[in-house]
């Protein structure tokens, strides 16, 4: 059974757990980030990180160096480190402003695997690659610009600490080199290429039917790229090989993560984590982590992306039978999440063998799922097809 925590009435814009999963940083669609810790069966606020002056869009927590980075619509990023307060000696989270040199909102932020860099996606058609300059004691940023034509909505690092995948509103997912010669060793050749100066484009893939790209993710080996786009499809691209598009009959997926080299978990406007499985020969949807029994809603209407649910059924009954009043007022979905899932991240297990994932969404819930408990999708419309 998934562990379900109702964190807030507001949407959760982003979440990031610390290394031992004892604390989680969240932003509740506001200018502040909250660090929550468990108290009984709930999560309560331990500390509030207040420095941004517009809505925080993304948070990431580096597991080894224990640093938090936040990105916001105020076009800034802050790196937060735990240090003793000079006056009281109490351990506090101290912010350091990062000059990103972007003129639009920051949309997404992720630490690199070695935690010596982080990347910030933005609406300025650019990605800021930030690295620490010990001489001047500040973070410097270098911009990836070409050939991005619109807002970058998501980014993810390749395990080699050099390559970066980015999904953008110009309908493309790309793989860039974010090689910084001052700090990076020369990377070994990968399937994405061998000569990798900064801003090399190692791959560029369009979505199946012209949807902007919401989420990108590298496979654990880094050899395969998957992305979810707003045309209700997910695509799995093998560099130099096939690109598999799976068109979904449901509402679009917006976020995804690989759990093993042949399994992806994706979620979005359909309010449930969907499991995909495959190899370079082909991919398919295999089920959902949400068996539809956890929400306590009466069986009957399916999740939102599927037809004949809550409001749809109400209006259809009113139309076809002239019934408006005696239709059930139960608007609860049968899924655990009651609204769009905006983030799915690995929670338990090791890279390549993820046993649990965490999701947060617009309904203010934080849910931890076992990746092994996959159930078949029921009440779904249509059939899947590969192309």
């Amino acid at each position, binding site marked *: 059974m998934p562990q379900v925590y109702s964190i807030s009435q507001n949407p959760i814009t982003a979440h990031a757990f610390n290394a031992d999963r004892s604390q989680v940083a969240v932003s509740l669609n506001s200018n502040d980030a909250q660090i929550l810790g468990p108290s009984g069966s709930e999560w309560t606020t331990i500390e509030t990180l207040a420095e941004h002056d517009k809505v925080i869009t993304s948070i990431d927590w580096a597991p080894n160096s224990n640093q938090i980075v936040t990105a916001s619509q105020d076009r800034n990023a802050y790196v937060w480190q735990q240090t003793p307060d000079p006056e009281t000696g109490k351990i506090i989270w101290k912010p350091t402003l990062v000059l990103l040199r972007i003129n639009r909102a920051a949309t997404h932020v992720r630490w690199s695997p070695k935690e010596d860099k982080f990347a910030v996606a933005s609406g300025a058609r650019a990605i800021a690659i930030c690295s620490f300059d010990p001489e001047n004691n500040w973070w410097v940023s270098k911009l990836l610009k070409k050939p991005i034509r619109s807002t970058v909505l998501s980014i993810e690092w390749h395990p080699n600490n050099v390559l970066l995948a980015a999904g953008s509103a110009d309908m493309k997912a790309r793989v860039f080199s974010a090689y910084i010669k001052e700090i990076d060793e020369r990377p070994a050749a990968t399937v994405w290429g061998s000569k990798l100066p900064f801003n090399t484009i190692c791959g560029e893939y369009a979505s199946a*039917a012209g949807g902007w790209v919401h989420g990108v993710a590298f496979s654990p080996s880094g050899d395969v790229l998957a992305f979810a786009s707003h045309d209700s499809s997910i695509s799995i691209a093998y560099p130099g090989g096939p690109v598999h598009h799976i*068109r979904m009959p*449901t509402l*679009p997926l917006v976020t995804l993560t690989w759990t093993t080299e042949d399994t992806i978990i994706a979620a979005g406007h359909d309010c449930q984590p969907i499991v995909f499985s495959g190899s370079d020969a082909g991919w398919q949807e295999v089920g959902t982590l949400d068996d539809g029994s956890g929400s306590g809603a009466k069986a009957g209407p399916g999740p939102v992306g*599927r*037809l004949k649910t809550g409001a749809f059924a109400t209006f259809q009954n009113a139309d076809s039978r002239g019934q408006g009043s005696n239709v059930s007022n139960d608007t609860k979905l049968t899924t655990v999440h009651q609204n769009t899932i905006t983030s799915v991240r690995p929670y338990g297990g090791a890279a390549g063998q993820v046993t649990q994932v965490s999701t947060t969404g617009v309904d203010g819930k934080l849910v931890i799922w076992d990746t092994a408990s996959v159930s078949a999708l029921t009440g779904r419309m249509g059939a899947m097809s590969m192309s």
Partner: protein
Amino acid sequence: MEVAFRKIDIDAFDEDVIQESELYEADPRDPAQVFEEAKARQASVRSLLSKNDIVGALVTALDNAPYGPNVEEAKTISLQTLLGILNSTKSTDISNVVQSLTMDSQDTLMKYLYKGMAMADSNASVLLSWHEKLTEVAGTGCIVRTMTDRRTV
């Protein structure tokens, strides 16, 4: 409140503005060729319809549908061809016809249904019953793809 500024085309002041042509791969065919193909399709659809082969006619009409700029005439012919098929299908057959289409054809059909509904003098009841049956088979995802795809028919 002063609202006139909202009508200013701010993109005109942006040197690096994103162009429509950058959002999708252009049709590699020449507009004249697209037009000829649309006319040829119209003829073969007519002969298929006279043999009562609705599925064959629909597959032919939806294959290689014209999209993008400079092919307005071909688009008009293709739409008329398609509406001809939709109007001559018995409403009890629609489900079976829709189920036999490929996913690509279903997506293209949905585009034509919305384009048809946007016309002033369309036969809305026919289009709506096709829309209902197509959505039952292809799901809401098919509608979403019609909304996002810039390769408009």
